[in-house]
């Protein structure tokens, strides 16, 4: 782990330094939920089951897959998920 990178805020500090998380979904009905397979073995098995559960709760499921679990998701993939989904589940499985 490298040294923390700390900078001085150049602004009036009226905005939060860290953005709050988005509000949690109240319902899955009609929501498109992305399932991101990080490409670790058997992650798909886990996500298959999650997909069934989500579908039965009324969600539309979209499946995505990272090229490799060793690297962050490519920016195109992240943007695609952000545009297409109301929520995303990322599965880590071994």
């Amino acid at each position, binding site marked *: 782990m490298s040294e923390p990178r700390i*900078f*001085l*805020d150049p*602004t009036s*500090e*009226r905005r939060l330094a860290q953005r709050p998380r988005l509000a949690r979904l109240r319902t899955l009905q009609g929501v498109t939920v992305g399932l991101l397979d990080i490409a670790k073995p058997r992650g798909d098995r886990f996500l298959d089951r999650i997909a069934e559960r989500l579908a039965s709760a009324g969600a539309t499921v979209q499946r995505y897959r990272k090229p490799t679990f060793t690297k962050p998701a490519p920016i195109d993939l992240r943007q695609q998920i952000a545009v297409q989904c109301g929520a995303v589940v990322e599965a880590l499985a071994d």
Partner: protein
Amino acid sequence: MDAASRPPLPNGLVAFVKRACPTCEVVAPVLAQLASEASLPLTVYTQDDPAFPVEVQPAARADDTSLEVSWHHQIETVPTLLRVEHGVEQERLVGWVRAEWRALTGVAGLGSGLPEWRPGCGSLSVDPDLAPELAVRFGAAKLRARRVELAALEDEMEAAYARGWTDGLPITMPTEKRVLAMLAGTTRAPQDVVATVPPDLVECTVEKVAINAVMAGCKPEYLPVVLAAVEAACTSEFNMHGLLATTMPTSPVLIVNGPIRRAIGMNAGINVFGQGCRANLTIGRALQLVVRNVGGGRPGEVDRATFGNPGKIAFCFPEDEEGSPWTPLSSDFGFAPGTNTVTLFPGEAPRSIVDQLSRDPESLARSFAVCLRTVHHPKLPLVFDAILAVSPEHARVFREAGWDKQKLIARLHELLMLHGAEIVRGAGGIAEGAPEQFANATLPKFRAGGLLVVHCGGGAGLFSSIIGGWANGAIGSTPVTREIAA
């Protein structure tokens, strides 16, 4: 430095030494002599080897290998000898000067076997390899700005863009180390309030200006100019809020006068309004970043400019005083020549006047006048000020004819008296123009004092330049000059 956070000094005689200093080695027996003979107690702070000097009892030695005591008490040389009473330094000697050491300590036979004089060595606390880190370790507490820590996977530059800190160009990331180095450029305290910055009307400290100056790419020696510019911009006369909010393409233009121009490497010559000079560009940019980040003035929000202009990234230049036939611009605002000043003008982008044939001042003044008449619209009188930037080759024509700046300005005003019939609404088949009631009047293009003349630019080229202004006077903005303080 905040006195409360600095380590106190013991009373009596206090010496700072390091083993690596030959003069400290020479002085070591003297320190032992002081420990036994002086009436005041002795403390020896050792910067590199806590066992040094062996001649002094361990109880009288203090470990300052962290350099905290040396740094806080501004020790620049070793050996340094202080006399301290009630925790307050009374006297200070640097290096070894026998007579002075005897006088300060009251020990008559001190160092009788030593040479009379030996220069000291640099204190480790000011070692150029260590000083920046020490400044952060011991000095960062004086910085009050919120710390922003990036997540492990965040790219620094992307993080700066994502947080809206930049004008669209990359910035220098404002680390504690860089901001502390920037603050060394001014004698002002970091928490001094420089101005209340529009549009959010936020009190802006020297520290916040320094942070934005780092981001703009300034060197510490530019900071006094930036501070004066921020102050000038945020006056009610200059009206930064209105200038930011206007749909017109104007923004602060900074003109620097005085010896500081050359001291910090500003460019008044070739390509004076263009790229290539760090001081010109980063000073102008620092002001814009302060307005953006501290004031909250961003395009599309309070900044409503229809077109804007490239100078809204940075537009700052010095006058070429040395080559000028005239008094500097600052003297038109009441400052003695030789005073360091910055003048803020609400200006648009510069445009060129080409006149390669006039060799007499009357002809050249007429060229200037017909071009100046077009500022914003040839049929609009009195509303807008302008800067006329005269190049060295054009200025030579006036120099040789003996025209001072007042004579040129007076002639331009005469040539720019506009006949009402030509400029009222509808005249020339153009709806824009002065109100009908002025049809029989004669109106000046510029108000008195509304035409500013500066001398700058490269040595070759029979061109001058116009920087048009914004709505002038109380309804808009008035140029403001501020002295640049150290």
